[in-house]
């Protein structure tokens, strides 16, 4: 899940990582604000400042109209549920600071750059500092970072920052903790100007405290193209991806990725059909099942049930193989539903009924 800035900064504050003084404004409640104040629209979009999502207010009479404007301003389609009101920092310098997971090395890594802020991606790839972190080396990493950022006087502060962000990263099952910019104020304080944080959905079982605006996405049903003409149903993530690939390669517009999972039951397949019927332009449904743990006859029963429940069901092009195939073929034959031998046959047939 991707946390919003105010959610991430609450976690940082609790982890003793310096953040600006702030209050959260909701549609129903505006607390008292100290001027000047920075009002930041809480949307999960990078570069929102350039899109009007961040406004500095100096005059008391501008507060209410600015808040109203921000709540009504969609940023790349997102309307905020909250606005973060922060003290205005006196900025001397902006750095890039993040903790990430290096997947290929299976390590936790500090990544930093001298030039932070919205243009961080323009920096040369090789000019970033990368330091592998563990629970013992914050001191040494802090020295390295102080030297790299040319902040010799801040070595201890950076050691604390690294130690606290590392602990925060692990404790919260984070997969990304990015402080950009890390602001050096004119009073030589280091403060997290903005923060992007992502946490691991798989770890939700040990975080009863997680209650964020973002909810775990259903990774098994993904909308690819709302205007798509061919829906796909497959079992297993790889086969579902391969089915989408095949539909697109055959020159049609796949609407969705759908993995009904290993051991898919009749009920889950029926739900899948209902989701697919929400697309406006579907002209064909391609079903590609290779049953290992899944049983073909279960899928066949679900198909038959869907046909009788959903009267407007577009034509189905079905390829089934694997466990209990014979039983499935018998069931479908009784209902006059045909099975095609290969995915390729499904695709050619689907192409005839869809407009591509």
């Amino acid at each position: 899940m991707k946390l919003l800035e105010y959610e991430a900064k609450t976690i940082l504050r609790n982890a003793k990582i310096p953040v600006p003084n702030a209050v959260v404004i909701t549609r129903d409640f505006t607390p008292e604000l100290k001027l000047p104040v920075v009002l930041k629209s809480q949307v999960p979009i990078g570069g929102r400042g350039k899109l009007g999502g961040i406004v500095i207010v100096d005059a008391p009479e501008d507060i209410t109209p600015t808040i109203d404007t921000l709540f009504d301003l969609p940023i790349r389609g997102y309307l905020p549920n909250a606005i973060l009101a922060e003290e205005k920092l006196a900025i001397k310098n902006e750095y890039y600071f993040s903790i990430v997971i290096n997947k290929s090395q299976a390590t936790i890594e500090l990544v930093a750059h001298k030039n932070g802020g919205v243009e961080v991606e323009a920096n040369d790839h090789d000019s970033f500092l990368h330091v592998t972190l563990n629970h013992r080396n914050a001191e040494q990493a802090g020295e390295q970072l102080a030297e790299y950022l040319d902040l010799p006087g801040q070595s201890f502060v950076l050691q604390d920052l690294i130690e606290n962000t590392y602990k925060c990263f692990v404790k919260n099952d984070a997969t990304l903790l990015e402080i950009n910019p890390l602001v050096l104020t004119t009073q030589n304080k280091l403060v997290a100007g903005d923060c992007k944080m992502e946490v691991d959905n798989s770890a939700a079982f040990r975080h009863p405290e997680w209650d964020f605006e973002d909810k775990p996405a259903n990774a098994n049903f993904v909308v690819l193209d709302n205007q798509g003409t061919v829906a796909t149903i497959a079992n297993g993530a790889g086969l579902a991806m391969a089915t989408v690939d095949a539909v697109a390669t055959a020159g049609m517009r796949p609407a969705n990725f759908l993995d009904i999972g290993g051991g898919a039951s009749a009920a889950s397949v029926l739900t899948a059909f209902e989701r697919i019927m929400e697309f406006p332009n579907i002209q064909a449904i391609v079903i590609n099942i290779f049953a290992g743990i899944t049983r073909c006859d279960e899928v066949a029963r679900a198909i038959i049930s869907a046909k009788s429940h959903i009267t407007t069901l577009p034509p189905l092009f079905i390829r089934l193989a694997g466990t209990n195939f014979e039983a499935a073929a018998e069931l479908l034959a009784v209902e006059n539903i045909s099975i095609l031998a290969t995915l390729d046959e499904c695709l050619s047939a689907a192409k005839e009924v869809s407009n591509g």
Partner: protein
Amino acid sequence: MDKNLFIAKNVIIQGITGGQGSFHAKAMKAAGTNVVAGTSPNKAGEVVDDIPVYVTVNDIMKDHSVDISVIFVPAPFAKAAILESITAKVPLIICITEGIPIHDMLHIKQRIVGGSSVLIGPNCPGVLLPGVNKLGIIPSGMGLAGSVGIVSRSGTLTYEAMAGLTARGIGQKYVIGIGGDPVRGTGFIECLDLFENDPDVTSIVMIGEIGGTDEIAAAEHIKNNITKPVYGYIAGHHAPAGVQLGHAGAILGSDDESASSKTARLTEASVRMSDSIVQLTQSVK
């Protein structure tokens, strides 16, 4: 990896009394795998299909030597289960469980390095040596003993490839699912080396997908170290950026992680790449 790791030996199942564990314990036994025992925290002394149940791996080791553990323990407890087998120095650990937190896997990887165990998975279908040993959930009826080595991140595409080859009368020596998680035990490179070094293997099938850069590293490795013919396919050519497709690891971040870039790099490494899984199984000679 030593090829002897996989040959018929004493196999245990951690999490043998759960729905998945008990079902697949029976299937493995039926396929001829020597399942000697299983674990379950509260059901010691019971039997599953005549397989005795113990509390811990260490308890089993008082009565049996253990060469391979296949793990079906639910995700919240899987880290402890894997560490238990690592501590007990089980030579081969195969973790089927899906949904293990990535931080747990980081911890496990640190323990694997410098330890004596090989880990395959998690979030994988395991390993099948058709006619020899079934270690996990790969349907053994679809395999045929032979000389192809298959390695794949996806379970169902592993089955597709195996069944497609079997239908053409081309048998397999190894069918290995390495799993769909971003941080996993054994990767492509270890499996490629296993296939290269086993004289029984004559050709290699490698199936990757979007997300991560392991296929890119594998391409480099193939260029320099693999002499046997490799046939490949990458799933997810039409994946949108930044969205997870089923597998925790199947998420397209940078361009490097895309199907087209991986396909290009593998093609450069002389891997015979296919546009679809069907084409892949038809291309193997």
